[in-house]
């Protein structure tokens, strides 16, 4: 618990000896199976929030029997307060490409795509330039793999992997039923590895630095480090790479303005941690997994407004196809308004909490399933602020 907070700098560091292509060559020189084993051994979990073991995902896709497979880099960073992928793609895009190419080599895919959030279209030109060179270099290495870019349509739910595939295929961005999972039937219904930007970079970095260097960081359940977008009431907002597994209290000491009353960990769909729990909340998969956004609120903030904003966001961004999420979000939003106005008794909040329990287990995708996180954590910890 007393692990000292460590800022690390793996992703953005560009050492003297660094060369993206060397990293790629290093990977290509090894059997694909070994790379998978290394990845599993490293304990790298997806940095998108769900935290599935990256190596396993690759292994499943590799084992699928199919002529056509895909690697998709999920750069549809839509979580409010998150902007780390943009930074990565802007500053070190080659590292992302290398991660994708290694994946293509490992699973036997010939095509890879970066699915780029519509708002990030200003990056396209630069990325395409760099990709042109990179794709050529892949060819020189006889690696039958090409990376392209797809531009997203700007809906938050398109960050959900199956909605992302639907969108790429030219359909409405609605999440699919699971199973089948992407490893079996993803883009174009073919086996697909979909990883977010950061995960792919870490693959490249593990290849470069070795499994052991990565394992030195973090805890048993949360290996390595992770990039965070820090925003809200902080004097030093920005992008920071931090070791996983640190208590939230240390994070607050480092980043807040001295008056933090809550931290929203993991963006709108994450949980809100109140001051009294800073000390025993671990940032990592064993505590509060995080997509990478840390929003700090000081005592000047109204938690009613915070929650209201989140609920408005979800009410709008739900794809709307499934009942628990489409209608549930509206009921939560209208519900806290009704309580605030005194039209419903405070006990109505408990009815709504029961509703979030249904949303959590009955909604079709992660969006509807996670709305209960901000709702319950804010209702439970700041009930007075909601009612009065």
């Amino acid at each position, binding site marked *: 618990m007393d692990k000292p907070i460590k800022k690390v700098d793996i992703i953005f560091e560009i050492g003297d000896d660094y060369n993206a292509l060397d990293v790629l060559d290093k990977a290509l020189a090894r059997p694909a199976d070994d790379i998978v084993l290394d990845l599993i051994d490293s304990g790298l979990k997806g940095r998108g929030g769900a935290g599935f073991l990256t190596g396993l995902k690759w292994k499943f896709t590799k084992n699928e029997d199919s002529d056509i497979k895909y690697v998709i880099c999920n750069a549809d960073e839509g979580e409010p307060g998150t902007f780390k992928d943009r930074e990565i793609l802007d500053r070190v895009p080659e590292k992302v490409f290398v991660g994708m190419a290694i994946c293509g080599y490992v699973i036997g895919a010939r095509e890879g795509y970066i699915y780029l959030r519509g708002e990030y279209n200003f990056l396209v030109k630069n990325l395409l330039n760099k990709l042109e060179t990179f794709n050529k270099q892949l060819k020189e290495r006889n690696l039958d793999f090409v990376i392209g870019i797809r531009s997203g349509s700007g809906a938050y739910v398109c960050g959900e992997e199956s909605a992302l595939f639907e969108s790429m295929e030219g359909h409405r961005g*609605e999440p699919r039923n699971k199973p089948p999972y992407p490893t079996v039937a993803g883009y174009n219904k073919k086996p697909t590895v979909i990883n977010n930007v950061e995960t792919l970079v870490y693959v490249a970095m593990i290849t470069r630095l070795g499994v052991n260097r990565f394992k030195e960081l973090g805890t048993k359940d949360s290996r390595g480090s992770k990039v965070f977008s820090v925003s809200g009431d902080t004097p030093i907002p920005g992008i920071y790479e931090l070791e996983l597994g640190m208590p939230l209290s240390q994070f607050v000491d480092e980043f807040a303005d001295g008056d933090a009353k809550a931290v929203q960990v993991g963006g709108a769909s994450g949980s809100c941690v109140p001051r009294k729990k800073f000390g025993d909340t671990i940032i990592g998969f064993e505590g509060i997994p995080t997509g990478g956004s840390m929003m700090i609120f000081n005592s000047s903030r109204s938690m009613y407004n915070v929650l209201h904003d989140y609920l408005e966001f979800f009410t709008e961004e739900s794809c709307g*196809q*499934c*009942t628990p999420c*489409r*209608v549930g*979000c509206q009921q939560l939003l209208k519900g806290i308004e009704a309580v605030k106005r005194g039209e419903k008794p405070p006990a109505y909040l408990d009815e709504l909490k*029961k509703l979030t329990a249904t949303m959590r287990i009955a909604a*079709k995708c992660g969006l509807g399933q996670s709305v209960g996180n901000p709702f319950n954590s804010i209702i439970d910890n700041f009930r007075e602020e909601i009612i009065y």
Partner: protein
Amino acid sequence: MSKYLVNLKINNTPVSVEEGTTILQAARQINFRIPTLCDHPDLNVAGNCRVCVVEVKGGRLLAAACATPVSEGMEVFTNSEKVRTSRKHIIELLLSEHNADCTKCFKNGHCELQDLSSEYRVGDHVFLDLVKPKDKIQDISSPSIVKDDSKCVRCQRCVRTCTDLQAVSALAVINKGDHQKISTFMGKPMHDVVCTNCGQCINRCPTGALTERNYIEEVWDAIYNPNKFVVVETAPAVRVALAEDLGFDPGLRVTGKLVSALKKIGFNKVLDTDFTADLTIIEEGTELLTRLKRALVDKDEKVVLPMMTSCSPGWIKFQEHMFPGLLGNLSSCKSPQQMFGALAKTYYADKINIKAQDMIVVSIMPCTAKKFEAGRPEMRDSGYQDVDFVLTTRELAMMIKQAGIDFEKLEDEHYDSVLGESTGAAVIFGATGGVMEAALRTAYEIVTGREVPFTNLNINPVRGMEGVKEASIKIKNVKPEWSFLEGVDLNVAVAHGLANAKILMEKVHAGESNYHFIEIMGCPGGCLGGGGQPIPTTPEIRKKRAEAIYSEDEAMVLRKSHENPEVNGLYKEFLGEANSHKAHDLLHTHYKPRKRY
């Protein structure tokens, strides 16, 4: 390759099912019913209403039973506390977004949402009312379809129907979140978009969000009006489905009771659209033979083949929107409904000494597009709107109930004469392939003097529920006047459901078809699966209705259109000969290209 079996337990009962089976299907096999709303046997899986959620042991989430395949060793619970609570929540949520004015709703008593909410006894108004006032404004622009967004549960069955089954895509999901809804292109009124009025979406809509425009009150008014002579005609597919809406099992033929009920309701004359179905065969058959002669003998390059049937108004509108370049392929014959209307207000009115303006023609149809067809400006050849009101099978059932008629106890009665006599050939118009079969029975005999070479007149290659059916008949030993057809292989094709029609049309459009004659029905199964037929519709129910139709045909004394004595009398007395000038004036029409949005 046979699929292997998967063993699982549902509510502690072991069951073995083929791999790929869903939890929902597996549960049905051992008689556990799991409620559903977005699921439909004709449509691909959506898994979006979440009413069918069940608990799978070890799972963090509930599973949508309709969309989750079984797996070995799975343990499923369909009624656990978690499941019940969630399901109740979900139904309550749906209702909170729903304008539940059941007593005023056309779907009252036939509504899946209503059934669900009464089963789960929701009604304590737990949640806030979310219905948007603007959604309560119904779209009644279309003569066939009423769209009421305040009754929509967003199951997307209509969208899947319109897009996948009908290849029309008049309806789509638009917007997200709380603004998500089912919409036409740019929210235009239903009347102004590519909608073919087929009504297939209505058949699959679980609620009153999509219904037919109903004209029941207008028809009662006409019946009550002493100055009006009200004639009713009934289509072939009505008699094999009506009973379903009156509480009987699918596949029951009730022709005699149907006639009897209509008389009791108070129609002045009860006549049969089958009569004009027979007439259609004569007119359309002659048109086909004429086109063939012009093509084969006169080498007239302007003749357009294949010729396509034109009985199905949903299909016609589809063609006008989607393949305007092929309109010349359509037979110029009006549909039986419209031939009937034109004759009723001319020939028949004369015969019974009623002024056309005093006559009201009502038709009972399995089809919602017929409502649109009756209002087409081209359909006034009698000098008045030829057919005044079109009721669906469902509306008729409602009238029978309103009239307090005990349907089961009715004696069989016969259609009135004239325009009441028909043959088996007309009856099979109700099934996909029926028009083709009827046409072949007559055309072959006209050309060769012999019956079609199929056992018992049953032309099996064009029967059945396959999407596109093809047949080829060699014409041999023809009568001298048809010598140009000697040895010709007559190639025909049949499609039902507009997605299948599209497949055929694309082939014709690309010049890749060698067909002479094509029958297309806009609805799956043909009229028996029409958009105005009793709900539900499933492949199984359509099969039963088809069986009933073919058995009705076999039970008839006359089974070939050209043997219909009343039809022959009509030509002798009134029309002259097939495709005569008079016949053209009254029984033929033309089509126009339409925009595509």
